[in-house]
């Protein structure tokens, strides 16, 4: 290297660069490096994108929600909900990453214990729960307030997957009735809250896992028939469902919320009004939770809505495609169940926002505001990341070129 007069010798800077690179290199055997090589980095990228989008969306919806909850002597900071969400992200993301490092056995056992704990809490909700907006869903006080059903969801998936995978050990176990009974009990307590949307999700998870666990198609047929009958029965005999479905089909009752959601979603056109330019969002109740998708539509355009929908679908597709290489029954069921739970919730929320489905009271995963929901989703996604972690060299042909496929 030539030395430039007055500047001293030019020191090659590549030395430090090599040092940084080598830390993530294949010859590094540290636990972090192993985790990084085993984890599904596409899923990690997608969820990072979702959380980032979520923070931007909550920042957009926060002034609308703050204005709604201000009044009288209370003045809510316009960005109050954004700061809260930021704090929850700071707590939740490390939780997700930490869970994703757990060995699969540990993850399974912890999830099973969690399932029992939160199922117990769910039973307590109707008796000790706090009533918010006409439904008893929350237990605990202050910052420690949580919705057991949100946390139970991922744990329930893992538990159910474990239960159904017992079939590999003993084919004689009556797993369909047992799992059906557990799901039915949970559904019963959910309906008591009442929480129609969550009930649908739990039932859908059970059906999905049964389907994947290989029960024969005759039983599936019965179950689908039973599901349709269940929805019809819910419509006929369950007041909440009757009202929600009537409101949707006949546009009767108070349609203010859905009208406003429609107006907000379309107010920005294809490319949106720009951040902070939204006007309709201020008339929209629940702008920061159930209808945040509409707020995104107004400020960032329907094109952003397309992108978000595509992101959710991409996560589900990514998990399902990767599972084609999975041969362990429990891991396949658990991963598919977690992805289904996640994707289904997103699809239902988006369908409600674009008025393809009746209003449910369901949040958009990782995007809607909500601390309890954020933490529960992080736990669920952490489990998913843990279960989909795999040694990239284990099942790969040695002849595959190094650059192709991850």
């Amino acid at each position: 290297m030539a030395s430039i007069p007055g500047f001293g010798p030019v020191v090659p800077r590549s030395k430090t660069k090599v040092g940084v690179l080598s830390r993530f290199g294949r010859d590094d055997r540290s636990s972090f490096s192993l985790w990084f090589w085993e984890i599904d980095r596409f899923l990690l990228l997608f969820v990072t994108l979702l959380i980032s989008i979520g923070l931007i969306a909550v920042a957009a919806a926060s002034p609308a929600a703050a204005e709604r909850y201000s009044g009288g002597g209370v003045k809510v900071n316009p960005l109050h909900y954004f700061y809260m969400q930021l704090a929850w992200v700071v707590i939740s993301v490390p939780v997700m990453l930490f869970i994703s490092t757990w060995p699969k056995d540990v993850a399974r056992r912890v999830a099973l214990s969690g399932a029992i704990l939160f199922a117990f809490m769910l039973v307590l909700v109707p008796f000790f729960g706090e009533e918010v907006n006409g439904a008893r869903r929350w237990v605990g006080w202050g910052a420690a307030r949580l919705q057991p059903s949100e946390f139970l969801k991922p744990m329930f998936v893992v538990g159910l997957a474990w239960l159904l995978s017992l079939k590999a050990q003993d084919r004689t176990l009556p797993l369909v009735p047992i799992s059906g009974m557990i799901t039915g009990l949970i559904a019963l307590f959910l309906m008591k809250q009442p929480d129609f949307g969550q009930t649908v999700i739990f039932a859908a998870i059970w059906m999905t896992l049964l389907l994947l666990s290989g029960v024969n198609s005759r039983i599936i047929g019965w179950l689908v028939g039973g599901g349709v009958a269940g929805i019809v029965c819910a419509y006929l005999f369950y007041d909440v469902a009757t009202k929600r479905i009537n409101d949707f089909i006949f546009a009767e009752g108070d349609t203010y919320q859905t009208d406003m959601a429609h107006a907000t979603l379309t107010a920005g056109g294809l490319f949106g009004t720009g951040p902070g330019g939204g006007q309709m969002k201020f008339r929209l109740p629940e702008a920061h939770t159930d209808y945040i998708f509409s707020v995104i539509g107004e400020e960032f355009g329907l094109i952003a809505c397309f992108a978000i929908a595509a992101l959710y679908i991409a996560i589900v597709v990514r998990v399902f495609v990767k599972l084609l290489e999975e041969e362990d029954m429990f891991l396949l069921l658990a991963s598919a169940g977690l992805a289904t739970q996640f994707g289904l919730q997103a699809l239902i929320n988006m369908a409600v926002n674009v008025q393809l489905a009746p209003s449910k009271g369901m949040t958009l995963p990782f995007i809607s505001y909500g601390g309890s929901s954020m933490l529960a989703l992080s736990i669920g996604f952490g489990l998913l990341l843990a279960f989909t972690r795999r040694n990239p060299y284990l099942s790969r042909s040695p002849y595959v070129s190094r650059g192709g496929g991850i």
Partner: protein
Amino acid sequence: MTTLVARPHRVRHAGQRYQWLVTAHYRLMVMMLVFLGVGLLIGLRLSYLAVFGDEPRSRVAGTLVPLRGDIVDRNGVPLARTIDAWSIGVHPDRLLGKPEDLAPQLAALLPEHDAGWYLAVLRSGKSFTYLRRRALPELVAKINALGEPAMAFAREPERLYPQTTLAAHVLGYTDFDGHGVTGMERVLDDRLTDPAQRGTPVALSIDSRVQAAMESELFAAMTSQQAVGATGLVLDVATGEVIAMASMPVYNPNKVGQSPPEARRNNVTQSVYELGSTFKPITMAAAIDDGVVTSMAKRYDATAPVAIGRFRIKDDHPAGRWLNVPETLIQSSNIVTARIADEMGQARMEAVFRNLGFDKPPVIELREKGRTLWPRDWGRATTLTTAYGHGIAVTPLHLATAYAALVNGGTLRPATLYRVAPGKAAVGRRVFTESTSARMRQLLRLVVMQGTGKRAEAPGYRVGGKTGTAEKPQAGGYSKSVNVSTFAAVFPMDKPRYVVIAMLDAPKGSAESSGLTTAGYTAAPVVSRVIARTGPMLGVIPDANKEIDLSDLLPLIWKPKGHE
């Protein structure tokens, strides 16, 4: 002895496991397709909203759509708009400060009441009362600075008339609840408050430039003549559109309460007048149409008054000779007009006026319409006096529509205050023949060129018209000194476009009019100036070389020797 048997369970295990994997993977892919399908559905719905998303925006009122639609003139100049204004109120029952302290401060800032009044209000214990509506933001800031939490400020939609008094009688005004009370505000109330339509302004036929010129000239004349009132009208002869409609005295629709009730009266459509000699061309046209007047050269005796019982019809300036038809109009002879009406007879004269709608309120969108004074019995006296505009009282708008029919080829069209798109004019109804209309154009032009309407001439605009000076009916008969002076004009006479009417109520005369109060000296100059000012705006190019063909009538006019 034991026999070794293969454990069937374990042997089948591997195969079964493989079987399960195939099924599971197959079902996994089916589920993935379901997810993709639902995702696609949401994507399609989003595309649908992106393409057809406009509908809900109009259904739910956007922030920029006013609560009451705007009214604009024919060129889009705003005449009435809705803005957010401040109102100041107080909740006396929630007062924290002492009323004794607050009342003088309020009296200083809101001087319309004294401190005692404010003290009474503050002590009333009422839950709410307004102190000021339409307050300026500066005043709101000052009152807010008093620091009394019981004061209430609100943004309220306010109707604003940015041109203040311009076309006030056409526009009308709204009450505090935002509903039209008079004028087009009242007519258009439903249309302006309809959520689906209020985003688009309503265009009137009024041209604010012409309206302004008419109002300014009328006001100048009214002031110099010390008249009690004045009205003016510009009407499109081909479409019936009212280009300008002015009634004096004016009021400010922004501050309705500050004007006297008589100022709110629209004299163009609500007040009826005996319009005098301006009726003569109508009588003449009817007589030509009916074959009573067969030739322009036909002469009538104007040497002696016409007697009806004890009442005699006289001329102001007796010609003392026999007059032919052009001379009758040029000199405005009551005697000859009455003689012609006598030949027409009662039935035909009555039919003419009925045909022109003089027996009914004027036809226009406004609800403020006056009932005409239609003669109760059509005796010979009525027949003869109505021929020159006495004994029958109509609105200036009646006269304008009749004049439009007189010159436009004979079609009577209802007047309208809405802008009429080209080719969309009302079909109308034929009241005069085409040839009569052509003859009337010549005759009216002659009146301005050589007769009583000389001062209405605007060089190059080929103005035609007729004066009308009617004595004002007062208690105990007609007043000799108090007139209603009207000039009904049409221009350009070779291809009529607009009727212009100016009317002064009880002019007292000025140096400019040599102290005279007759229409030729008071109303005619107004018409002349309005035409000169607005002609170019209305698309009429002044041209000194153009003139209507009068070659067949000019030789009929007798001139004293030395006046050739």
